[in-house]
């Protein structure tokens, strides 16, 4: 058993493949595969690629829809220059980075912890129920999470302060001060997305052959050694996917934060997506907002590549 770096193996999903009949034969188009994959590709082109091309195109234009008299002339890289010089954009991006650091490591640690507990427990019934319950926060619409959050965190009427009051604590102004508000949205995001990490980690742990775990226990009595050398390698592909998905999620996290704090108080929870929405749909400068979105897409891709290089390893059995 060992780890194999799979970056250069060129594993390809081959959505629309060609069949070769013999080494010298002409490639023959596989109509069955095309018919099966075609609708998905078409849907992707319509709802993913076409809007993306539109956004890129808009990012090179003056596009202020509330000022139709200005027209939509081509302005080259002006919108990108505006974004790169915009201190509010950078500070929003900085807050988003802070939010990422507050949430993702905690979610990964807690998620793995929950998965380990569920794997190790002898109470199979409660473990099965817990697995089902883990889906509930993920399935809840972010807007609804925000609305429930406003009730839960309300300083005067909220259930959280009521519970704190029962044990003689509080009241805490969860949404009313800058630091607390950032902590509160991080807490809410962790409540919603930690279960996702737990489920991914759980699937990784269930793929660890039990005899290898048993063998490692004969080698060492240290739980940590077993986890680090035996179980963690099986978790890394899933956790890399988690990192990529959560990074993209956090860069576009809007609904929950907007409903919960509207980016406030002040700008304390104005994450970059909230700022992009403000430029796009309050100021209606779609050219600049598109440039911001394109830059975030590039950032997301760069980070995804970095995660794959840094963390992604496949287990070689």
């Amino acid at each position, binding site marked *: 058993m060992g780890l194999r770096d799979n970056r250069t193996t060129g594993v390809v999903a081959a959505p629309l493949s060609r069949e070769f009949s013999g080494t010298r034969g002409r490639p023959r188009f596989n109509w069955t595969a095309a018919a099966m994959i075609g609708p998905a590709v078409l849907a992707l082109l319509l709802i993913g690629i076409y809007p993306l091309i539109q956004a890129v195109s808009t990012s090179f234009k003056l596009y202020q*829809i*509330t000022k*139709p008299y200005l027209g939509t002339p081509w302005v080259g890289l002006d919108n990108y220059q505006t974004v790169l010089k915009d201190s509010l954009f950078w500070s929003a991006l900085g807050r988003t980075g802070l939010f990422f650091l507050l949430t993702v490591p905690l979610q990964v640690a807690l998620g793995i912890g929950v998965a380990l507990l569920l794997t190790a427990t002898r109470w199979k019934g409660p473990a099965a129920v817990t697995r089902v319950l883990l889906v509930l926060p993920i399935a809840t619409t972010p807007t609804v999470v925000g609305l429930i959050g406003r009730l839960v965190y309300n*300083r005067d009427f909220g259930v959280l302060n009521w519970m704190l009051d029962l044990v003689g604590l509080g*009241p805490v102004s*969860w949404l*009313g*001060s800058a630091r607390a*508000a950032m902590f509160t949205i991080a807490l809410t995001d962790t409540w919603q997305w930690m279960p996702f990490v737990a489920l991914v980690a759980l699937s990784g742990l269930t793929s660890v052959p039990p005899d290898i775990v048993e063998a490692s226990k004969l080698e060492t009595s240290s739980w940590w050694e077993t986890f680090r050398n035996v179980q963690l390698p099986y978790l890394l592909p899933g956790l890399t996917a988690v990192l990529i998905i959560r990074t993209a999620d956090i860069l576009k996290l809007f609904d929950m934060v907007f409903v919960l704090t509207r980016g406030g108080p*002040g700008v304390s929870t104005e994450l970059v997506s909230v700022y992009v929405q403000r430029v796009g749909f309050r100021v209606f400068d779609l050219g600049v907002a598109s440039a911001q979105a394109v830059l975030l897409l590039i950032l997301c891709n760069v980070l995804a590549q970095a995660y794959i290089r840094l963390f992604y390893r496949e287990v070689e059995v």
Partner: protein
Amino acid sequence: MDHSLSRRRLLKGAAVGAAGVTAFSLAGRPTWAAAQGTFDYAKAAESFKGIEIGAPFLDRPGYAAAIAMLPEFESTTGIKVNYETIPYENSREKQVLDFTGGTGQYDIVLVDVVWIGEFAASEWITPLDKFTNDPALADPALNLQGFFPILLESFGTWNEVVYGLPFDNYSGLMYYNKKMLADAGMPEPPKTWQELKDTYGPALTKGDQFAYALQSRRGETQSADSFMRMVWAFGGSLLKPDTFEPNLSSPESLAGLRFRQDLKAIMPPDIVEWDHDETVQGLAQGRVAVINEWSSFYATLANPASSTIAADLGVAFEPAGPTGKPAPALGGFSLAVNSQSQEEKQKAAWLFIQWITSEANSKKYIENGGVSGRQSAYQDPELQQKYPYFAPLVESWNNYGNPVFRPRFPEWPQMSEIVAQTGSEIMLGSVPVEEGVKTIEDQLRPLLEPYIKGDKPKLQ
């Protein structure tokens, strides 16, 4: 083609019409009410029967009142009004996207007082003379003069052209809990801001109970309800009226904003996160003694089902600042017709707007929880007795209303974002008042430049 019949001409026409009808009534002919009865909505809508029109509504009492009245309109005219209830924060966005995308979702346009400039200048809404000049569509009892002038001027008119009729009408009022005040030995509400802070504040702020709450959540609530309220109350203003240069660094404006910081001592600590709902509920649940809120929330506060203090609810003018006069916030919405809608739908939309804002329906609208913009409704003794908010509301509109409480030109939404962002940072104490004001002025100046230079007419 000149679309724009001036407001003056329109009013003049209405006045002549009114005089004519009055003369009729003097001669023993139909009175105003009877004249209203002569307009047959069923006949006017004959060719639109079965037509469906879209309308954006808010989750506020005035819209609930209109919804309660819809069946009558629909059964009379055969026109179906498909209303969509959307949050205020998204209402401009949704409508602008509808206009610019040409999706035709809304035939009726909801125009906030601060959007009229943007919507009219972009020609997204139709001048109403198109309908008022059409005898088949215009109720002879339309009587534009019957609206409170400040409402028709502010919510419905841009550059002297009438685009919308006042529908959901607000003035800032002071609501208070009579019992809490009486228990603290103060049977009367505060007359001045200073009195509120210095006398009522200490007496009514105890533990988890607060003397006052000023809704200040980031957004229009921060920029209008909180920031501009205190600027005007102390004699300041956002702009210098002659030059349109920012005026927030004037001694009066700064005094108002400094006073707002002082008020924090008697307000809930998380007040920067309080929107209208939290503020109304703060009073309704007995946690706060005094608030300044829109007239439209009277229905919520006076309803025992939604308010524990309904029996103890008091209503008065907003407190006065150093100028000696109250400077209540002015807000509200008119209903207008989408200029991109099909011709038939435009006419159907107009019929609904005319009907729901008519004098004949104003009493019903009020009794269903709305706040009418019709002067005649407030002269009804029966209603006056039933609704104690009438007197302060009418006086606020007639004597203290400020049509430029917020500028109505197209740049306001962008300016509001700037004011709301730094305004809430000032309130939090993370930026000193003077520094925050300088930041706001620096950011506002480029937007105001065309007005300052004279490239754009100084309309607000």
